[in-house]
């Protein structure tokens, strides 16, 4: 009996030892450019990953300082998740150049470009900056479309599994869990916004395009005349006229956008300024993707109801 147990014990000990020594015992160092990607990375990676995020939730993801501390963070990363579609073009390239991290090189499993695989909207046919700071690969604010988020989550799970194959079953299970949670909530969100199908709304930057398309809202104007171009009085006068004509009364503003401009417009259109965020953590109680979307949908639905 003891003789029979011995090999089994030895095998168990060996297994324990190998799992302690294997790279799987070490958490995967994951760095994301923005908090939204961080939230999904945490859900997919679970205990097998350690997630750090470069941009703060309240920070405009187009304008993050390329602080030297980010170089150190990127130098030690096993995986980098970036939004892509030139969202981070103003600050990420010099950081990556200094980070000297071959694991994050283009084409490596350690680099995840979230926009890959997303059906991008507003891809310009010609590149012309007289139309503003148009991203050549399309509008990069796709994350608040739950179906896009699912594509990104699958993409993340696939790359995580390549980098840490020993945790692949965990990533697969977490992905299934994430998809199930989003699917269940998606029905609720659609129901909440269904009464407002076709309702006209206004945003500061054109960053609710994917959301509006998914939930059948209509972004009729942006306070910025063109992407990245500051609102001019002439353009705001046009927005006010259009809002009054179209019966649009809700202006969505993110924490890093100019609320005062939005307030001025709201006063002249019997409108309201709605403080929303696409980044988890910017508003209390929105640390996960589902809670972020839940808050976003409910805030917008409540405002649209009040302004009906």
């Amino acid at each position: 009996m003891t003789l029979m147990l011995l090999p089994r014990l030895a095998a168990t000990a060996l297994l324990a030892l190998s799992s302690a020594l294997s790279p799987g015992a070490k958490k995967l160092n994951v760095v994301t450019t923005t908090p939204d990607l961080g939230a999904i990375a945490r859900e997919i990676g679970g205990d097998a990953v350690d997630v750090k995020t470069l941009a703060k939730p309240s920070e405009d993801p187009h304008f993050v300082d390329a602080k030297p501390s980010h170089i150190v963070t990127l130098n030690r990363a096993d995986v980098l998740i970036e939004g892509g579609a030139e969202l981070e073009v103003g600050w990420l390239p010099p950081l990556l150049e200094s980070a000297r991290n071959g694991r994050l090189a283009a084409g490596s499993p350690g680099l995840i470009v979230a926009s890959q695989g997303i059906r991008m909207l507003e891809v310009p046919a010609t590149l012309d900056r007289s139309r503003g700071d148009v991203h050549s690969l399309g509008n990069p604010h796709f994350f608040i479309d739950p179906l896009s988020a699912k594509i990104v989550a699958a993409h993340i799970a696939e790359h995580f599994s390549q980098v840490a194959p020993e945790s692949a079953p965990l990533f697969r299970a977490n992905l299934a869990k994430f998809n199930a949670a989003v699917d269940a909530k998606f029905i609720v969100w659609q129901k909440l916004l269904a009464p407002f199908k076709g309702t006209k709304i206004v945003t500061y930057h054109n960053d609710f395009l994917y959301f509006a398309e998914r939930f059948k809202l209509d972004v009729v104007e942006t306070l910025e005349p063109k992407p990245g171009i500051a609102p001019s009085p002439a353009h705001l006068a046009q927005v006010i006229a259009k809002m009054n004509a179209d019966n649009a009364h809700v202006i969505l503003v993110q924490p890093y956008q100019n609320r005062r401009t939005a307030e001025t417009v709201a006063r002249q259109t019997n409108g309201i300024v709605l403080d929303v965020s696409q980044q988890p953590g910017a508003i209390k109680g929105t640390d996960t993707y589902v809670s972020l979307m839940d808050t976003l949908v409910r805030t917008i639905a409540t405002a649209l109801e009040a302004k009906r």
Partner: protein
Amino acid sequence: MIRLGKTVTLVAVVVAWGCASTPASAQQSKDSTARRQQRQLDSLAESIKTLQARLDSLAAAPAAEAPPASAAPTRSSGMYMNLGFDALSDFGWSTTPDVGSLQRGDHDPAVRGFTIPNVELTFDGAVDPYFKGFSALVYKLGPTGESGFEVEEAWAQTTSLPYNLQAKAGQFLTDFGRQNAQHPHAWSFVDQPLVLNQMFGPDGLRGQGAKLAWLLPTEFYAEAMLTVINSFGGTTSSFRSNESNEIHGGVPVDRPVNSLSDLLVVPRLTASLDLSETQTVVVGASAGIGPNNSGPQARTQVYGVDTYYKWKAVSGQAGFPFVSWQTEVLSRRYGADARVSFTAPAQTLPAETLSDWGGYSQLLWGIRPRIIAGIRGDVTRNSAAAFTTDLRENRDRISPNLTWYPSEFSKLRLQYNYDHRAQQGNDHSLWLQFEFMLGAHAAHKF
């Protein structure tokens, strides 16, 4: 899809040939043969129908996805590099008609009226999986309207060396302090700080050479760099410069490169800490050690320290508001040998150590999106010497300015300079600078 199309054509040709030959053969054949051929024809027609249906379905599918598919390749039209173009132009007036003596930088306003001091073409991209390449070619129009051209930078840098090392080789702006390695479009003022001009000449310190940089394995950012470049030329003016008589007052000696110590060595150590969520500080120390051509054994040492502090609001709009403060102090020990005076060849100047120092400090306030107010103070001080030259004159300058960025790709800057020169008194200048950029989106280092 094209291959399928060809197959259909081929089948159609075979069928057509079959049809054409049928009447002739039918006359000679028995009924059974005719029926067999009819069956074959029917089956061929069926095949054509199936293939046509497949062709239609294939043609229809990409049509639905056509917009993104056709739009995607427009990006950089398949080029393997980013192209950038940047043009700076200045307009203004100074109380001195000899603007060149006041504004000594190569990218400074040079005359009363208009100057185009920097028209830059940049190329960058991955060379292969091992190197990144960069080049900046600069054109400028001189005070008399003549075009100048310089290969400002052309270098390759490794991307995947082990042990956190990075090597760079070619022609590049040397990592000495903060501003020296920046291109004019990244400067916060219209002109070069006086001290950089005095220590390194009108174009700053740059040259042909190589650099090795090591990212230290510390919790905070720290990087050690060692650059070795040629010590000869107009862009190494404290060393074996062909314009060195400006600095040491004597006729330069012909000094070939006899050993490694005749090259210019530039070590630098820099570190950064995030003081809080909104505050970051960067400090650095640099040195430049190499030969000068006042004599066959003469040497120069330039030392510098630099600090940069930045506060940025937690939820700023487009990165505003912010406050930044940058200071650099440099000192030079120029070991001048006994030498023949440049201005009076009969006279021999005694061996002497020229101890000079200078610095600048600039404060920027990003008031609201795309509007920045700045002020800079400049100072240079030089030890007494056996000769006099404009370049070693004690100077002070105060420069307030205001910059407006209509977008990230254009900039308008208004700057006033109050200049005090020990020998020549005070001057006042007002400069308006306009910049525009085309092509690749500029990414900014911290």
